[in-house]
C-alpha cells in the first residue's frame, strides 16, 4: 500500500517544533474569537433594542411596539402588551371567544402591532396594571361565562359601562387621552404650504453633479486602454 500525503505532505512540516496542523487550528480558534467579537460589537450590540424581534422570530411569538403620547417606542412581546393575567395571548383569546385581529404589519414572519399606551397599562409592575388585574379578577369571578382576559376587552367594557360597579377601584386610572387640535392640524398641513424650495435647490445641484459624472464616464475606458498597453510592454520585456 502506498501512502499518499494530502497535498504532497505540505502540512506535515514543522515550524518551531509544532506541526502546521496545530498552527492552523490555533489560527482558526483565534480567527473565530475575532469574528465573534466583531459580530458582537458591530452587529449585535448596536441593535440591542430590537433583540425582542429576533427572539420573537425564533420562538414564533408576536411582537408589539408600545408608544406613549410623545411617540417613544418600546418593543415588547405580544403577551405582555395585550394580556392581563399570566398566560399567552392565544389562551386569553380562546377564553374570551374572541377572533384574532389582523396585525398592523409583519417583520419577516413576526406579527407586529402598534399599541398606544401612555398610562403604562402594559407594564406588569405598574400600579395601573395591578388595578386592572384586581378589577378583572373580581369581574371574572362574578361572570365566569364572559371573562375579561385582554386589555382591549377591559377598555371596551369599561367604556360601555359594564364595569361601573367598580368605579371606586378604577378611579386612579384614566379612560381617555385628550389630543389638542393643533397636533392634528400640524400633521395634515396642505401641500401648498410646505416650503420645499431649499430642498429643490439642493436637489438640482445634486442632479447636476450626477449629470457631470455621467458625461465623463467614457474617458475611463481610454485610461484603461493606456494602462493595458503599459502592462503589455512590461510583460513583453520579461517574456523576452
Amino acid at each position, binding site marked *: 500500500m502506498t501512502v499518499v500525503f494530502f497535498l504532497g505532505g505540505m502540512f506535515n512540516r514543522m515550524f518551531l517544533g509544532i506541526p502546521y496542523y496545530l498552527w492552523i487550528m490555533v489560527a482558526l480558534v483565534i480567527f473565530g474569537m475575532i469574528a465573534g467579537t466583531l459580530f458582537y460589537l458591530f452587529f449585535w450590540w448596536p441593535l440591542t433594542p*430590537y433583540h425582542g424581534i429576533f427572539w420573537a422570530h425564533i420562538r414564533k411569538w408576536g411582537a408589539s411596539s408600545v408608544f406613549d403620547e410623545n411617540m417613544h417606542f418600546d418593543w415588547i412581546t405580544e403577551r405582555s402588551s395585550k394580556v392581563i393575567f399570566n398566560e399567552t395571548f392565544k389562551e386569553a383569546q380562546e377564553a374570551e371567544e374572541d377572533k384574532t385581529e389582523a396585525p398592523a404589519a409583519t417583520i419577516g414572519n413576526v406579527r407586529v402591532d402598534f399599541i398606544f399606551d401612555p398610562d403604562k397599562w402594559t407594564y406588569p409592575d405598574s400600579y395601573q396594571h395591578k388595578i386592572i388585574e384586581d378589577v378583572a379578577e373580581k369581574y371574572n369571578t362574578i361572570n365566569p361565562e364572559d371573562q375579561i382576559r385582554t386589555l382591549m376587552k377591559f377598555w371596551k367594557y369599561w367604556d360601555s359601562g359594564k364595569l361601573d360597579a367598580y368605579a371606586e377601584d378604577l378611579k386612579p386610572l384614566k379612560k381617555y387621552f385628550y389630543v389638542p387640535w393643533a397636533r392634528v392640524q400640524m400633521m395634515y398641513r396642505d401641500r401648498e404650504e410646505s416650503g420645499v424650495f431649499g430642498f*429643490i435647490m439642493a436637489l438640482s445641484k445634486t442632479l447636476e453633479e450626477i449629470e457631470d459624472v455621467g458625461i465623463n464616464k467614457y474617458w475611463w475606458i481610454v485610461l484603461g486602454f493606456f494602462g493595458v498597453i*503599459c502592462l503589455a510592454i512590461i510583460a513583453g520585456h520579461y517574456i523576452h
Partner: protein
Amino acid sequence: MVDVLPPEFFYMPEFFDMNLLMPLWAWILLGMIFVGFVAAVAMLYIVLIMKPVAGFGKVGESSLAKGSPTQVFSIWKNRSFVIESLWYYGNILAYGDPIKKMQMWFHNSEKATGLSAGKPVMITRDGYDGTVDFIAEMAVCEIPKIFNRDYGFEQRQKREFDPQSNKWVLSVDADGNAIMETVERKDDNGKPISISSFADIRRLMPTLVKLYPLIPIPIYQLYDLAIIYQFTPQGQDSLEFGGITMDDAKEWLISEDKPPKSWFEKNALLLMCVLMGIIGVAFVYMAFPITSTTAAASMATTSAPISIPGV
C-alpha cells in the same frame, strides 16, 4: 514542545545594510501590537463615536450627503414593516438616491418625530406624502365616531302610508304614543352631515374645533391600519410628491442662467489624465528597453561558436 528555540527565531533582519538591532520575533510582536492598537482605536471610533449617528453602517455614500441619516419606520400597504435609514434635509425625508427611489415625505410636524432605541425616529406610509404622527391619526379616526354619535343622526317620529286617506301620517302605537326612529341628519341641500372621509373632516373642521376643543382617544388602543387608511387624505402619495419635487428641481436646474460649459472645461481633468498616461507609456519604453543587456548576453551564449578560417 521544543526545549531550545531554533536559530531562525533569533534572526536579525537587515534593512539596506543596516542592522535593526532586534530579532525577528520582536519585530513581529511590535507589528502585532501596532495593528492591535489601530484596530482598537478604529473600533472605539466606530462603535462609541459613530453609534449615536442613526443608521450607521446602513447608509452608504450618496449624492444627498448634505442631509443627515434618520431612523425611519416604514409601514406599507402590503403589511410589511421595515426599519430603514433615510436622509432628512430641508424638511424632506428622502432616499439617498432620488433617481432610483423617488419617494419623498414632507416632515410637517415636529410631534411626528418619535424616539426608538434612544434615537429619533420618523414614520412613513406609502399612502401619504407626509411623516406620520400616530396620535394625530388616531384622533382623526376618533372624531367621526364622536361626531356621528352626537350629531350625525336624529330621532324622528316614524311615518307610514295610510291607504284609506291616501296620505302619509305620523305613526303611533296602541296607546297613542309616538313611534320614534333614528335617521341620518341632513343639511339644507339634502346631503348627510355625518363624517365618512377625511375630506368631510377638513370641510367641517371649524365646527369640529368649536364642538370638541380636545379630542378624546382611548388610553389603550391598537393602531388599526384599515381605519387609518379610511381617514387619510386622498391623492397625496409619497411617490407623486417625490416626482413633483424632482420635476421642480430639474426645472430649477434649467432655469439657472449660466453659460454652458465648453468641451475643454468639461474634460480638462481627464485630458490631463490621458497626457499622464502617454508620459507613463514613454517612461516604460525608456526604463525597460526590449534590447536589454541581459537579452544580449543570453543571445551571445546561445549563438553558434564563431570559427575563423585559418586560425
